[in-house]
């Protein structure tokens, strides 16, 4: 609860809404206790007193009644009716919506057509009809306003429920033996609740307005009882001569509706668990750089990552995702970066172009040099021009990297036009040529496809075409074939291999699959807990792994042709990178670890192209 309140008040607008609303709420709640005049006591002699006159802080109305007193009592009534109507409408509407959305099919159809019928009437007419049938009075106005708003909730909640009912956790709940009622109450409702709350917070305002409307027309509160609507209605005739009689209730309606809406938005955001951990905060255009220590000097490599440190600062914790990684590639070379999830391989790759989300990402040291130029210290505009032009990325899931609403040809053309001044037809011709390069059959027809019209393999080819669009020197491919079928994977790998031989591309290929690495890469680097533990030529490393981790990781991978068997596994879990053990990070899981492994930094040492970060390597190198 304190966490909830803390989050709520971190949102400044919500805090303002909360303050305004609580002031109103408190003052109307204690209104009967305040030394106010009788709101219904008329004194025609004192009619239309201006605000701030003696004894009448806000003046008086056309019957000489004290406006302050009427305002507080009227607000009390309006708020009560509005909130009650909102609760009633939300309860009935959400129940109808959840049932319709969860069961679907005929039940859904029946309920929603009924709701549609209700919606076919203009709402104020419907409310008028209900009040006409039941007779005027505040209670009947409340019923009318609630009934009119049921469809709004029903449709809103049904839409959300339909999306949730298809999710796998609902299936899982069914398999866990839950009945329909329990699934609706314990699985669906908590997920729908924020939507109900936000819908309610916007409609409370609405419903206060609507009851005010009915009262304004004389169908709600009956004289002499005051509510905000009837106050406005009575002040209408004096709008020009004595505007304060309308302005006072008008401002109150404005303040109530505004503060409720602001507060409602804040409540919704604070209820969302993803926002609670700050996951949805908008990242900057480039990763924050806060380098300590000297920047390494330039090398002659095409792309060199030098002693890179990338961290995530979450609250007081510092996650050292990349803890001093050095890598380099030459033109035409393919470097495999192998590691398990959380080993820092993707963060290393994203750091190259400053694409690590900030906050919470921070590059805390080292350099990334492209042809000697330091990219970490570069200005955003320089980096933006390099991204996709000199260094391009291919990501794992082509469905989420392509925009679903644009044709693939348009997206390809956009990638080209971002860096080169080309006319639309020229860009399209270039896009067509790219589709041919990545061997998409029938490119003339395919160029006008939307991403969803293509298979996973075709989409990944588009992703590769986009990476090639500006003829970059380096391509960083982050698990580009993991989401694909084996037959398609083989085609994509063969394509990448051809491309790098034809164009002299340097590829950094990130994967967890040794089979893929063995087939595609010249050299590999194995990462564990943010550090490189071994590197060297692919064959040498795979045939004679020197680090115990590499050796055991290779043994974990089942290979076709081995038959049914128990697989080698590495016990334990990789360490959490905010609390790394001193010495060798693999020591806790290593069966060869000795005392020396647990104290002091172990360096990456070796001869020639091979290096290993181990005191007692499996092989002498």
């Amino acid at each position, binding site marked *: 609860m304190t966490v909830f309140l803390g989050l709520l008040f971190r949102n400044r607008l919500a805090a303002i809404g909360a303050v305004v609303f609580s002031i109103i709420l408190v003052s109307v709640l204690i209104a009967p206790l305040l030394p106010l005049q009788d709101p219904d006591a008329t004194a025609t002699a004192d009619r239309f007193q201006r605000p701030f006159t003696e004894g009448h802080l806000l003046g008086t109305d056309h019957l000489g009644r004290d406006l302050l007193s009427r305002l507080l009592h009227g607000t009390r009534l309006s708020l009560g009716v509005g909130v009650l109507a909102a609760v009633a409408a939300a309860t009935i509407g959400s129940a109808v919506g959840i049932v319709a959305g969860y069961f679907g099919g005929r039940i859904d159809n029946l309920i929603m057509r009924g709701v549609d019928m209700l919606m076919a009437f203009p709402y104020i007419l419907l409310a008028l009809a209900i009040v006409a049938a039941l007779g005027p009075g505040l209670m009947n106005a409340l019923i009318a306003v609630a009934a009119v708003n049921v469809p709004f909730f029903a449709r809103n909640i049904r839409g959300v429920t339909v999306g949730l009912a298809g999710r*796998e*956790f609902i*299936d*899982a*709940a069914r*398999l*866990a*033996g*839950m*009945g329909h009622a*329990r699934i609706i109450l*314990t*699985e669906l409702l*908590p*997920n729908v609740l924020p939507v109900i709350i936000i819908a309610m917070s916007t409609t409370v305002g609405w419903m206060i307005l609507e009851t005010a409307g009915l009262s304004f027309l004389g169908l709600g509160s009956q004289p002499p009882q005051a509510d905000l609507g009837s106050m406005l209605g009575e002040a209408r005739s004096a709008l020009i001569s004595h505007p304060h009689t309308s302005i006072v209730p008008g401002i109150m309606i404005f303040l109530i509706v505004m503060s409720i809406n602001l507060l409602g938005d804040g409540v919704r955001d604070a209820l969302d*668990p*993803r926002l609670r*951990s700050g*996951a949805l905060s908008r990242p900057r255009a480039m990763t924050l750089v806060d380098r300590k220590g000297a920047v390494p000097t330039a090398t002659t490599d095409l792309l060199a990552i030098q002693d890179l440190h990338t961290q995530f600062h979450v609250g007081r914790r510092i996650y050292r995702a990349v803890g001093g990684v050095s890598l380099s590639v030459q033109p035409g070379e393919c470097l495999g970066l192998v590691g*398990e*999830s*959380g080993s820092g391989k993707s963060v290393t790759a994203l750091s190259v172009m400053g694409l690590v989300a900030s906050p919470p990402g921070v590059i805390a040291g080292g350099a990334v040099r492209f042809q000697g130029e330091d990219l970490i210290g570069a200005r955003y505009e320089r980096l933006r021009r390099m991204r996709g032009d000199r260094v391009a990325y291919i990501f794992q899931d082509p469905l989420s990297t392509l925009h679903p609403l644009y044709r693939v040809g348009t997206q390809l053309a956009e990638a080209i036009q971002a860096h080169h001044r080309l006319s639309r037809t020229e860009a399209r011709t270039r896009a067509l040529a790219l589709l041919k390069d990545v061997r*998409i*059959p029938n490119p003339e027809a395919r160029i006008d496809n939307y991403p969803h019209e293509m298979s*996973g393999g075709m989409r990944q080819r588009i992703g590769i075409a986009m990476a090639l669009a500006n003829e970059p020197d380096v391509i960083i491919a982050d698990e580009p074939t993991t989401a694909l*079928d*084996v*037959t*398609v*994977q*083989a*085609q994509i*790998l*063969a394509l990448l*291999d051809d491309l790098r031989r034809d164009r002299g591309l340097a590829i950094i290929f990130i994967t967890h*699959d*040794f*089979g*893929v690495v*063995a*087939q595609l890469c010249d050299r590999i680097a194995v990462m564990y807990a943010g550090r490189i533990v071994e590197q060297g030529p692919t064959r040498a490393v795979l045939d004679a792994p020197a680090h115990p981790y590499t050796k*055991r*990781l290779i043994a*974990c*991978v*089942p*290979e*076709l*042709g*081995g*038959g*049914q*068997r*128990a*697989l080698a*596994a*590495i*016990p*334990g*879990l990789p360490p959490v990178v905010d609390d790394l053990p001193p010495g060798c990070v693999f020591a806790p899981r290593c069966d060869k670890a000795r005392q020396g492994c647990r104290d002091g930094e172990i360096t990456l040492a070796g001869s020639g192209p091979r290096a290993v970060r181990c005191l007692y390597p499996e092989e002498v190198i």
Partner: protein
Amino acid sequence: MPALKVTGLAKTFSVKKPLFGAAMPGVHAVKPLSFAVEPGETLGVVGESGCGKSTLARMLVGLLEPSEGAIEIDGRALDTADPAKFGRLIQYVFQDPQSSLNPRKTIRQVMEAPLKRLYYMPRREREARISEIFASVNLREEFLDRYPHEFSGGQAQRIGIARALAAAPEIIILDEPVSALDVSVQAQVLNLLSDLRREFGLTYLFITHDLAVVEAVSDRVMVLYFGSVVEIGRARHIFANPSHPYTQLLAGSAPVVGRPLTAPEQKGTELPDPLNPPPGCAFAGRCPRATELCRTDEPILKETGDDQLAACHHPLKD
């Protein structure tokens, strides 16, 4: 008596009838297929995306109503009327670990559901059982009070497996259970699954696209292509000596250390269109051995070797 027996099971998704014109015939996601799994056996189901393996799995656990055919568990026809009874019989491990966990429930609540609803276990026992399961799937107990979005895909999938294990069913349908896991963890989980199978006499239907994994864990393997079984046989033989050209293509595509990188088939071949299926063998368009017969007549499963069946007019000889 087989633990799981499927006869002529099929699923056709109807395509919405257009406002004008005749209704479309519908998409045959799974064409009538029959197989049996013996108690304690692991049947691997392999195929590429869109081959109908997930549809098959969902029908087997009762999440999807079959269009035709029958499912028997332990000789009794599948009855989904009582979810509690059914959940104790057969469980499912989902492909997407994140979306199979309710984002607003703690892991403890997720884990407790099957124990409470299926076994009416008192609190003390539930806690003991959850710790036991968590230890076996290599998860820290401190995770229990966290929410699903705080976990990596790998951890979330282990929670999913733990949830299925909590129901202690006889049959577990594993739908790509390790494709989201890291190799070191994948091996742990596969070994764990095989230990559990031995310990409790569980029967697995292991659905995956990873041939090496399926070979390592399965007794028999069934290869699906375009909603039909193209080959079924002993795991040991099926990839070493495939009878169906599609099985051979799959085996040839798997990346293997030491094999040079070659695209195993013509570049740019596409899967057949499910809305407009080709007559005859669905694989004929990609098959180097296809003849006129393949393009007109649909092949049926025939014995091609010792306990090996293939649906091919021109099976490969060993």
